[in-house]
């Protein structure tokens, strides 16, 4: 594999809408407070629910670090990965799972829901997410094959310098 390794992760409007529909359904059915999706590298993809008071960027980065660390643990004992993590707090709990192999699904819930319900609904939603991310990968691969130019193909040194002025 080349050093540029630029298998960039791309998200389009259409897929994001579909993902948010699945998330909103999951939010309702699991009685959850917040749901967000994070790329395994720690970048927030989208979030729904009561996110106003949350630092979603930090949450995304730490979630990915968490998954990476437990993934490392899994390998040490001969497991491929631990696909579900659960953190129990006094009021709020966090349920973390991997969907479609690449994306991390985080569900935050309180006493209005239960671990059992969340697990059940997450399992169902995971298939829907998995399908959308698979379609997304195909679409991006097609765009790449068609050679659709990057929106950044035309950037100049001045554009870049302006970022730092």
């Amino acid at each position: 594999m080349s050093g540029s390794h630029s298998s960039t992760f791309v998200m389009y409007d259409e897929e994001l809408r579909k993902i948010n529909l699945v998330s909103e359904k999951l939010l309702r059915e699991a009685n959850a407070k917040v749901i967000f999706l994070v790329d395994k590298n720690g970048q927030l993809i989208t979030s729904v629910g009561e996110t106003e008071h949350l630092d979603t960027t930090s949450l995304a980065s730490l979630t990915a670090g968490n998954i990476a660390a437990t993934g490392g643990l899994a390998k040490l004992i001969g497991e491929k990965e631990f696909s579900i993590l659960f953190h129990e707090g006094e009021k709020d709990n966090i349920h973390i799972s991997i969907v479609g192999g690449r994306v991390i699904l985080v569900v935050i819930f309180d006493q209005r829901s239960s671990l059992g319900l969340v697990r059940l609904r997450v399992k169902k939603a995971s298939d829907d997410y998995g399908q959308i991310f698979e379609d997304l990968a195909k679409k991006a691969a097609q765009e790449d094959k068609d050679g659709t130019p990057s929106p950044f193909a035309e950037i100049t040194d001045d554009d870049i310098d302006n970022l730092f002025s």
Partner: protein
Amino acid sequence: MSFINYASREINCKIVYYGPGLCGKTTNLQFVYQKTSPDAKGKMISLATETERTLFFDFLPLALGEIRGFKTRFHLYTVPGQVFYDASRKLILKGVDGVVFVADSQEERLDANIESMENLKVNLEEQGYNLDKLPFVVQYNKRDLPNVSSMEELRSLLNPNNVPEYEACATTGEGVFETLKAVAKLILMELKKGTAGGGSGA
């Protein structure tokens, strides 16, 4: 791996600061954090031990402004420099878009720099990257100290490929933004080469 979000018109890139223990990686991030206006930065997270040594990583999200209608965000990470945290360092390199190697210029840390550079190459190769092809800059930190190696010596040992390099004193901030700017620029130039699909979707 950068993340282009056409829906929110955002682009996210990951920069990792690498280098031997106590070379000043966290200090670099702290200076950037202090000097960036509040609307352009998120919270800086440090997962550190009680003695302020990095345990897992430091994280600082930065928003640099717009390019062609896309908000550019850079996520800055440091690795734990101490030798025995190698497993953690490997994890943090996942999905990296650009690397800053922070060298400790002090004579007695010369071997530690070389060891860390070798470790960087090995760990990148394990992830399928090649340092020679990745956006990469070198920072020679602690130039203000009296017992530093000469630039010639450091350069010949740590930067044989002549990537952009900067002398720095991270505690006062000298060279810190120059280094960040250089690696960000290399990453954006790399993006410029890509296509809209960028290789794979998910």
